[in-house]
């Protein structure tokens, strides 16, 4: 049987595309195809990824300039058809800027870029992305300057009520406190879905945690996506 194909959208300035492809191939028994941002057609849309990096230099607001690329129009079309879409880091920023996900990612509270390992609590396993994750706490690196999740009071309440929050920053034991919040995100939010729960955005980088000695939890995350394909 020919392998299924997962699409990864690449913008000028993306820099996690290669590592994402490696992680996907390692776990999902699929091929990956890079879609250059200027392409108006996405041939393979069983699943779409938007990788991390600095699309268009992250100028103006991280992610905004990328939302004007033709490929994003396609992403929006497919999102309506229920295609699973995952945006990581810059991908998350792009998804909020094109309004596929609620809220916005502001400059980190300490105004600095932050690169370190953090712990993530899996808040609920009711989404297609989280239901097969075989652990309750994951350790991933973060590396971003704008990861401070913000949403208005109303939308935040809706997000929580509708169980759209998937990941929260926590301690190694899973406690979600202010001191485990690296960037000032409201409610320690690190990853959310849309209302229909076919789109996931997250700041931490599972694709950077698949072979390193300090954390290999990315493998668990990608294994959990198997059923989707």
């Amino acid at each position: 049987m020919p392998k299924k194909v997962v699409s990864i959208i690449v913008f000028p300035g993306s820099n996690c595309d290669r590592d994402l492809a490696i992680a996907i191939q390692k776990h999902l028994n699929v091929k990956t195809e890079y879609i250059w941002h200027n392409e108006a057609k996405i041939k393979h849309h069983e699943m779409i990824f938007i990788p991390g990096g600095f699309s268009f230099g992250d100028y103006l607001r991280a992610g905004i300039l990328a939302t004007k690329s033709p490929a994003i129009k396609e992403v929006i079309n497919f999102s309506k058809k229920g295609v699973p879409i995952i945006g990581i880091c810059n991908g998350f920023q792009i998804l909020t800027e094109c309004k596929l996900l609620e809220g916005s990612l502001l400059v980190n509270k300490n105004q600095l870029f932050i690169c370190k390992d953090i712990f993530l609590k899996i808040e609920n396993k009711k989404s297609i992305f989280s239901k097969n994750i075989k652990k309750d706490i994951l350790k991933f690196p973060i590396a971003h300057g704008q990861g401070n999740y913000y949403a208005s009071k109303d939308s935040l309440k809706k997000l929580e009520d509708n169980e759209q929050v998937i990941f929260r920053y926590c301690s190694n034991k899973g406690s979600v406190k202010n001191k485990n919040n690296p960037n000032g995100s409201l409610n320690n939010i690190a990853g959310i879905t849309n209302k229909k729960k076919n789109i996931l955005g997250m700041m931490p980088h599972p694709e950077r945690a698949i072979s390193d000695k300090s954390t290999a939890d990315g493998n668990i995350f990608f294994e959990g996506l198997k059923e989707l394909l």
Partner: protein
Amino acid sequence: MSKISKEVIENHGISLAEFNMILKIIKREPNLLELGIFSVMWSEHCSYKSTKKWLKTLPTSGKRVICGPGENAGIVDIDDGDALVFKMESHNHPSFIEPYQGAATGVGGIMRDVFTMGARPIANLNSLRFGDPKHPKTKSLLTGVVKGIGDYGNCVGIPTIGGECFFHKCYNNNILVNAMCVGLVKKNKIFYSTAKGVGNPIIYVGSKTGRDGIHGATMASAEFDDKTQDNRPQVQVGDPFIEKLLLESCQEIMKQDAIIAIQDMGAAGLTSSSFEMASKGSCGVKLNLDKVPCREEKMSPYEIMLSETQERMLMIIKPNKKKLTLEVFKKWGLDAVEIGNLTDSGDMELFFNKKMVGKLPIKPLADMSPEYNRPAKKLKKNKLKKKYKDIPIHHALLKMISGPNHSSKKWIYEQYDRSVMGDTLMSSEQSDAAIVRIHDTNKAIAITCDCNPIFCNSDPKLGSAIGVAESWRNLIASGAEPIAITDNLNFGNPEKEHIMFQIKESIKGIKMACDYLKFPVVSGNVSLYNETKKKSIFPTPVIGGVGLINKTENIKGFKINLDDKIFIIGDSYGHLELSEYNRICGNNDGTPPPLNLKIEYKNGMFVKKFLKDYGDLVTGCHDISDGGLLLALAELCISNKKGMKIKLPKNTKKLKEWFFGEDQSRYLLVLNSTDDFKRIAKKNKVKISEVAIVENTDNFIVEDNFKIPIKKLIKYNNSWYKKFVDI
């Protein structure tokens, strides 16, 4: 054309003798454009006129060297068809004027030097020197520089994985920002800068040319005065996004067999890049300056030739690949234009609106560039032995680990993306050298930056040799085979005899150590005139060492486990002069510890072989450098959040010497089994002694002396930066 006045010549930093030389070369008066070109080509920065004579003496070959100094970066062989391309470069003056942009563009420049040669950058490091923390400018310089380095490398997507940061009042008005980049290339896919083929097109690609940093290269060759701080046009703004596009598009074109020669436009921009390419290939060059993409209106040929706008490259392309090349650049959204072609005239001919505006012979200009044997003389030191207080051992330790130079650099390195590209195995806080895996293999490389300016100031030759030895030792301690170095020689004004003396001595010291350790110099950079109001920096020859790790299993870091025993390897004499301990006691006099290269080599080879043959017995490894034995042990505890018990030496009368002496050629080995180790050390006649044992304790215990809770050590270690940047 306007006649050239004495004042104009002087403003271009050209001496009378040099001007006469120009007249001899072109057999007429130069016009302003030509004078400008001479001035940048013959500036200290581009011509190395004060140091060339001495740099030539450095050992530059070795069994792994593919390309030594003379190209954009050095290249070494790391087996299996792979090679490493690396170099270090300074951006000291620009970073003092505008720390954020200065540091950022420094990182951009060194990455271009590396990817010009066909390599993909895989690691960035930086070596930083700031003034006294109490100096009013230090804080904003530190915050600006670190953010600039981080933002640039992060955006391009290259991990910044190591470096050093040191504060001393000698850098109050002359900070040092040295950036190093290491790239990976296939041995048969290396690109050089030698232009070839009459008629071949010259392609310009990258940012549009603006009026940025015109005379930047000559600025780097002139001593600062107070006015310099208002010097506006010198500042160049970096665009890491364009850099990323340049990197990716060049990599794409390099796969196409289109490029004959390629060179980044660094210092002295279009001038030096076109001259160097043509001169290497003994070609002539014709440039149509009106074709150069410009950002500003009405730019003159002079401005176009001398601009230092960042993120630009020049390449000679095979004529039949021109269309394809331009298409690739277009796909990446970059400005790419044919601005001229190669000729057989041997001249550089510059046209603007169809008129010839300058013509200079290429070979003579390069070959006859000035080379000075500047007078050098040792400065007599008046030894003032001040009285100073003797601080108790545990106070001294706490003071050290909570002071600016030995505090945790977390505040710095958390701003650097270290995990991008997924191959960082250790960043420099986890091991003596930063370690990055060669993608998709079981090989890795180790990289380190070192210099002890305190030693170099007292004895530049010995201090510089120690720098090389320390770099070598760091690589061995991390489990690597040392291969080669790049160096960045930061000094004051070479026209002063005592500074010239420092420079010559320092190069001698580097040569001595490199020769002995078979550790060649494959690239480097010189930054002179780091001097303000007659106050020079300490001599700061930064050494960037690179080593190879055959199997990632052989990597060693700062790891310790319960019940491990820790041994010191090498002789301890208790040399306290110029040590960190003496400095915190207020005593800054003396000489550096002696360095016996024979013993250095012997100890290093022993450790290297032991790690290779008996790696299973070794939990971790750490070299002993400034701060001595006790600081090295404390660093292990802090890094592992574990306690240990430290033994007293036989001679308890000289405890301070034992714990804080900075004798060279020593390592700490953390062993989980010791019998084989003792036997082999004895056989090799290597001096060893057991110094500590990792016990089940939350304390840092010095037998019969004191104990400090590890939590307290960590808290002290983490406090300085937070307080300093947050006040």
